[in-house]
């Protein structure tokens, strides 16, 4: 087979030394994933999962493998505050855990939360299954990179029956370094039987930097567990952020995901859910708002593998300037997943003639007695509503931004945490033109 010519992106990583853990299975998995990455490089748009997100420009750039001074990068703690959400927080800067910015003192009972680097040093074996995975698909280049280079992340475990109402926070920050770096974080989240957790995941960028970050997270929910997961993505405007989130739900487990995608020059998020236990439920709500020259790509793949499983997804996209949004929502109802109930909707707004949104709902059903509905639209603001507001004295630009904010806010009305919901609304109003 032909070896593809090495792009600057691949060449820069070819000579990078892998982190040495001293754990044989981990070092082997890292080596194999790096080799797989080097052999195939970045996917091009012929790979279905990357059809609307071209990586040509990224491939021409070179990133240093990690930030050696990540522990010393200056980050203003005030920039990390989330009003109304205080409590335990684990903070990572340029791919490294920062004890000085984190707060782990008041961990509720039943919660185990620590950085991956510490977990690997003391007790690596429970992580073996998650971290020795090989990524075999052509579209999984970033997962391979992550598996090869990630040396830190969050390991979060909620004990059986523990119910934690106040949200825990995970913060992933990109900060200026000496040149552009590629950093990687690997998170492992596990909720044991009937555990309940509220989790806020934030992606932030400070200062001028054009790093590449990858974040790979496994969420495992055992029977009856409930996860409320809010994601606020405000990565730096010039940075690239590629995330992949797996969710595995046992019987009666429930996930409520709210995701707001605001930042990043190139932001890609893959959500991969497997409903493997009867009556598991996976609900996603989200909005992506690419403006300027931003590119935001959200990919949902929801697999119903057991009886009476439920999924619902409501997403809104708003593209302005030369912003480009991509949404793919795939629902697969496997044979035997009888009684499944799946719905998926994606509505989009284009605010400028140069903006673009590509949306693609997909439905594959191999079971009986299934309820499934999906739909997607791309349109402009409702002229009737716009005139109504203006006829009452609200200037055109303000009326537009009011209507746009209302459109983008809809998925977050079901966000239970009041302070968080208010914060999302503020972020939306601040982001929108007008």
């Amino acid at each position, binding site marked *: 087979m032909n070896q593809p010519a090495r792009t600057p992106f691949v060449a820069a990583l070819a000579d990078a030394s892998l982190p040495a853990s001293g754990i044989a299975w981990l070092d082997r998995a890292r080596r194999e994933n790096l080799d797989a990455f080097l052999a195939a490089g970045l996917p091009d748009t012929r790979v279905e999962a990357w059809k609307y997100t071209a990586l040509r420009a990224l491939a021409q750039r070179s990133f240093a493998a990690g930030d050696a001074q990540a522990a010393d990068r200056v980050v203003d703690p005030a920039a990390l505050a989330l009003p109304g959400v205080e409590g335990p927080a684990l903070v990572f800067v340029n791919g490294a855990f920062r004890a000085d910015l984190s707060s782990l003192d008041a961990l509720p009972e039943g919660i185990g939360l620590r950085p991956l680097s510490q977990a690997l040093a003391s007790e690596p074996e429970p992580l073996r299954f998650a971290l020795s995975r090989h990524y075999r698909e052509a579209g999984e280049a970033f997962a391979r990179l992550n598996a090869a280079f990630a040396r830190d992340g969050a390991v979060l475990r909620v004990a059986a029956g523990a119910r934690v109402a106040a949200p825990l926070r995970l913060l992933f920050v990109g900060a200026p370094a000496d040149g552009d770096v590629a950093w990687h974080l690997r998170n492992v989240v596990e909720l044991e039987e009937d555990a309940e957790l509220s989790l806020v995941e934030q992606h932030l960028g400070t200062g001028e930097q054009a790093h590449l970050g990858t974040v790979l997270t496994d969420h495992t929910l055992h029977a009856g567990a409930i996860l409320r997961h809010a994601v606020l993505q405000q990565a730096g405007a010039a940075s690239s952020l590629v995330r992949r989130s797996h969710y595995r739900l046992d019987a009666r487990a429930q996930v409520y995901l709210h995701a707001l995608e605001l930042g990043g020059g190139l932001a890609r998020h893959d959500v991969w859910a497997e409903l493997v236990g009867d009556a598991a439920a996976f609900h996603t709500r989200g909005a992506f708002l690419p403006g300027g020259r931003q590119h935001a790509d959200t990919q949902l793949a929801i697999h119903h593998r057991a009886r009476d499983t439920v999924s619902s997804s409501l997403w809104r996209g708003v593209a302005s300037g030369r912003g480009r949004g991509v949404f793919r929502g795939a629902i697969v109802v496997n044979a035997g997943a009888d009684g499944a109930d799946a719905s998926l909707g994606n509505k989009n707004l284009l605010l400028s003639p140069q903006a673009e949104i590509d949306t693609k709902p997909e439905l594959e059903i191999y079971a009986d007695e299934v309820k499934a509905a999906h739909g997607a639209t791309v349109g402009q603001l409702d002229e009737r509503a716009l005139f109504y*507001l203006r*006829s009452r004295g*609200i200037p055109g630009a*303000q*009326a537009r931004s*009011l209507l746009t904010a209302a459109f983008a*806010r*809809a998925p977050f009305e079901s966000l239970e945490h009041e302070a968080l919901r208010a914060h999302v609304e503020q972020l939306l109003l601040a982001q929108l033109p007008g």
Partner: protein
Amino acid sequence: MLKIDNLHARVEGKDILKGLSLEVKPGEVHAIMGPNGAGKSTLGNVLSGREGYEVTEGSVVFEGRNLLELEPEERAAAGVFLAFQYPVEIPGVNNTYFLRAAYNAQRKARGEAELDSMQFLKRVREKLKVMQLSPELLNRAVNEGFSGGEKKRNEIFQMALLEPKLAILDETDSGLDIDALKQVAEGVNALRSPERSFIVVTHYQRLLDYIVPDFVHVLAGGRIVESGDRSLALKLEERGYAWLAEHGEPAGADA
């Protein structure tokens, strides 16, 4: 206050208004009646500045200004208010937020101080009482899930709050039962004053039993073909619009 002279307007390439003239002085209530398709709603839309209505001839002067040059929000700030025939539902925009944004935008445009949320709420509560609207509606999205009657009452409530100089009521009676009609009329009557004028557009004379106009005009074929006092409305009710066609020349011939 308002002087419309020889107004011609076109919608989607079709001539609808064909030489409409009307003068409204402060404190006057003018009713405009006419059969379907006569151009009644077009008049309200042209006056409030809706896009897609092309004025091809004539002029509209409001308080000495060329109204047709102004953006819809500028007309609102100048004191023109349109009560919609079909108030628009706006999901996700909170009613109170919308009202305050509108109220303060108008004040700002006129160089007046904006109200803070406490001051504004006080004002809202006063006006709510007048319209007998449930305060609960304020917490909902604009017109979303409102009944037909609630929507129309909400229009009049907005009018009470914004205190325009000229209010145009576009078929505000359509779809209302008699109780709702009375409530709407009471709201309007409470706002009548020597400075405030009304143009009441309606198909039926029933509304005019409750909002008693100073003048009644009949709009047909894009022009005012008959003007008179309240008795003209009763005559129309009695004889129907078909009577107009047989009636020959317009303009106050009947006495």
